[in-house]
């Protein structure tokens, strides 16, 4: 997917050629790009993505803006909710018409009170770019959606991705295993030039983004799709990650700036993640998790879905295991599986992606070489079995015994003391040595294998 952010020279650069100020009071400033009008219409109260689509559909936003402002009666036709969408289809037409009239009156008032220049200037001041459906830089992947977002707000740089985009989604309540795998996949895929697309939520999403930052090559900066406005950091705990994304990635949303991330916007956000992705990977998800909605959206537009299998006892893996069992997703046993899926997609739809940068390797090639030298590293990667055995052979029997008791699940130090029947000090020294060797790390209320 590609997108240069700047229709009309808007997003990435400074305020070059900014028309703001030069057009005092003029209702239709000739120097303003059409997207400025679209942004004003999109920011109207109670505007939903569906209403915006019907209002702007296939015509210059300036036109729609003018009609709305003038209270043009022909608008009513567009404003009336189409049959079936509103409740009570037959009897409801009169009611829907009444509703449309109400909105028309309200929005006419609102538009007369708002200045297009002001809205546009404030967007530019916050370096928020606007891309509209049909623009040259509109992400092409989104065109596959039955209801592509009419307008996308972008903060950061939605640079033309050198490689294809991989969506990595999953539960907010990720286990150590889930966030570990998400981080690893994020790092490995970004290291091979893939753009990681996710939702910046806690758990899997954040782990995937953070992983991507550790290894991303140029041109493969991660993209976060938010449910609220691109200037609303949600969840607030990911503030640091948000700033990193804005700085060297992109934050995208279909909601106008300032919009709160209310619940109905999340499924809509998920469809954008699916649309931007060439391949979707679900790392951990419960049976009813929000990630399952992303999977549905991906299914609808033919984006291949991969799921990371997990323990049958873990509630966080119920959804992913079910996807694999019912054939809704291919198992993702390692990064190679994702790469293979990408190559297949690239072959099928070469127009979407640049297949040159996609190289397949199962812990071989580049990644394998890295693996050897990474045995002491603390970032992202995981040791393979031989490397672990090699490192363990340098450990004392007691340290090996402690390592064997560790797993992907959190093991508390109490348990380690009991199981090895050794005093606390010996266990903590062994754990410290294992962490120094990159074999273990503290997590939650105890320790896990790294």
């Amino acid at each position, binding site marked *: 997917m590609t997108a240069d952010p700047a229709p009309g020279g808007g997003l990435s650069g400074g305020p070059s050629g900014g028309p703001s100020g030069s057009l005092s009071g003029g209702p239709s400033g000739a120097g303003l790009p059409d997207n400025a009008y679209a942004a004003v219409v999109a920011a109207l109260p109670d505007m939903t993505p569906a209403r915006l689509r019907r209002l702007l559909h296939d015509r210059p936003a300036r036109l729609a803006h003018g009609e709305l402002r003038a209270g043009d009666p022909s608008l009513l036709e567009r404003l009336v909710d189409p049959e079936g969408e509103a409740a009570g289809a037959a009897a409801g037409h009169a009611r829907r018409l009444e509703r449309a009239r109400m909105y028309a009156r309200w929005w006419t008032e609102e538009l007369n009170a708002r200045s297009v220049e002001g809205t546009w200037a404030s967007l530019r001041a916050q370096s928020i770019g606007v891309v509209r459906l049909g623009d040259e830089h509109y992400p092409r992947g989104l065109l596959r959606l039955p209801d592509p977002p009419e307008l996308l707000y972008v903060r950061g740089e939605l640079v033309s991705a050198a490689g294809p985009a991989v969506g990595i989604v999953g539960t907010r309540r*990720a286990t*150590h295993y889930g*966030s570990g795998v998400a981080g690893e996949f994020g790092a490995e895929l970004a290291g091979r030039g893939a753009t990681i697309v996710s939702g910046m939520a806690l758990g899997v999403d954040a782990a995937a983004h953070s992983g991507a930052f550790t290894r991303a090559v140029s041109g493969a900066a991660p993209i976060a799709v938010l449910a609220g406005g691109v200037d609303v950091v949600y969840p607030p705990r990911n503030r640091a990650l948000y700033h990193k994304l804005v700085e060297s990635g992109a934050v995208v949303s279909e909601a106008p700036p300032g919009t709160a991330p209310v619940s109905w916007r999340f499924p809509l956000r998920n469809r954008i993640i699916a649309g931007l992705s060439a391949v979707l990977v679900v790392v951990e998800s419960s049976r009813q998790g929000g990630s399952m909605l992303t999977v549905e959206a991906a299914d609808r537009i033919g984006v291949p879905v991969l799921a990371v299998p997990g323990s049958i006892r873990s509630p966080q893996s119920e959804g992913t295991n079910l996807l694999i069992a019912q054939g809704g997703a291919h198992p993702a046993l390692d990064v190679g599986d994702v790469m293979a899926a990408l190559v297949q997609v690239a072959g099928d739809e070469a127009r979407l992606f640049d297949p040159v940068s996609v190289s397949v390797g199962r812990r071989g090639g580049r990644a394998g070489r890295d693996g050897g030298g990474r045995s002491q590293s603390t970032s992202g990667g995981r040791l393979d079995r031989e490397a672990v055995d090699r490192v363990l052979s340098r450990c004392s029997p007691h340290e090996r015994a402690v390592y064997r008791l560790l797993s992907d699940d959190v093991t508390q130090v*109490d348990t380690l003391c009991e199981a090895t029947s050794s005093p606390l000090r010996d*266990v903590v020294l062994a754990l410290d040595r294992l962490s120094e060797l990159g074999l273990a790390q503290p997590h*939650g*209320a105890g320790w896990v294998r790294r």
Partner: protein
Amino acid sequence: MIAAIPSATLLGVEGRRVVVEVHVSTGLPGFAVVGLPDAACREARDRVRAALLSSGLPWPLRRVTVNLAPSGLRKTGSGLDLPIAVGLLVALGEIDRRAVEGCGFVGELGLDGTIRTVPGVLPLVAALRTTAVVVPVPGAAEAQLVRGPAVRATRTLAELVSVLKGEAPWPPLPAPHSPRPPGHAELPMPLPDLADVRGQAVGRAALEVAAAGGHHLVLSGPPGSGKTMLAERLSGILPPISREQMLETCRIHSAAGLPLPGGVLAGRAPFRAPHHSASAVALLGGGSSWLRPGEVSLATNGVLFLDELPEFPVAVLECLRQPLEERVVRIARARAAVTLPADFLLVAAMNPCPCGEGNRAGSCQCTLAQIERYARRLSGPLLDRFDLHVAVSRPDAHELFAISPQETSAEVAVRVAAARELCRARGIRSNAAIPSHRLDAIAPLEPRARALLERRLAASELSARGLDRIRRVARTLADLDGRDGAVPAEAVATALELRPGRRALLAAPGYAA
């Protein structure tokens, strides 16, 4: 026609000397109390009159003025009833002036002339500094803890008057509180023993470190994992308190109007466990007229145990930060400001999430929003004041049965006392209070220990602020091993395990890594 009787009033946990001046003169019959009396004190007039009349004593049909000097100090409570009555009788010539020479009086009068006890007999008597004191019978035992004055007590005003007139001898006193019983067998209640705790290597170590170094401790775990069980065993491993500490704690209990705790009188550290519905005033002390000491003061020289920490109102918890830092509570009211002692060891227990299960068992029913709300109740600055963060796990059946016998409280107490001795020899009150600038002198690190800390700092598992706390805990761990010199690596590694931070306490995602 004037008399001056020494007495005392309570301000916080301290007594203040008050002289009750009674003046009887001709004029319209009347009775006035001046010198900033509070409501209870002003009502003394009616109680004194009724008590005198029902004791068969005269009530003057003359003008009576009572002045409570110094008149700038606010007098609270009913303890001035007795000195007012005695002063009046002296001024009337009913009692010989020489009979009350050098004698202080404290007590409330009933309408039938009985002498009732008041809160704070111990600090009041300590403040009097007279050669003899007359106190209510129920307060005699605690008055005798004060060295110096001869303690006398009578049940009624009539009895007192007949003694002062020389018509009867002083009645015998009730048995005094023995300052310290000879053996532990006489302790009021046997303490629970650490030997009953199965497994919990980390919890036991944390308890021992808390006792030895005065480090505040928070325990987190699912219900039934033994948090309360561990906390209750802290008293049994704390060293006995000194006589001065015992007197201080008794004075605070007395000022709060509570009976003196038997354990404290026996030299055991106090253990206070307020329920989580406690208000800020109940916890910190205060109140509108009588500045009553709160739980933090009552726990002075001992343990304050807050079970279900996040269930306490947030505002109340935040109030704890100042006493934790300064070891005193400053309470300022419009009329008075007092400083109450608050030198306690804080032990808190909590669940990792509202349902209690945490994400370990995978059976947690809480929504993310619930967990977030729960986690927000504990502010960073508050949790930061705990040197020890311990996740307690619920032992499984196999652990409960197949475990080698555990150390008893007595064995641990020996190590704790030795560690405290090492600490005292360095001239600091506790390892938890080592100032940052003296850490290098008091808790130098062995090269391996330094390397370990540097590595963990580099892995950003540790903040610079947390570093000092880790070093203090490591000092205590080394002291418990009897190692006075540089702190070894295993002490540092253990200290790190005893303070892992939020991730160990709360099940909230995002704290996981």
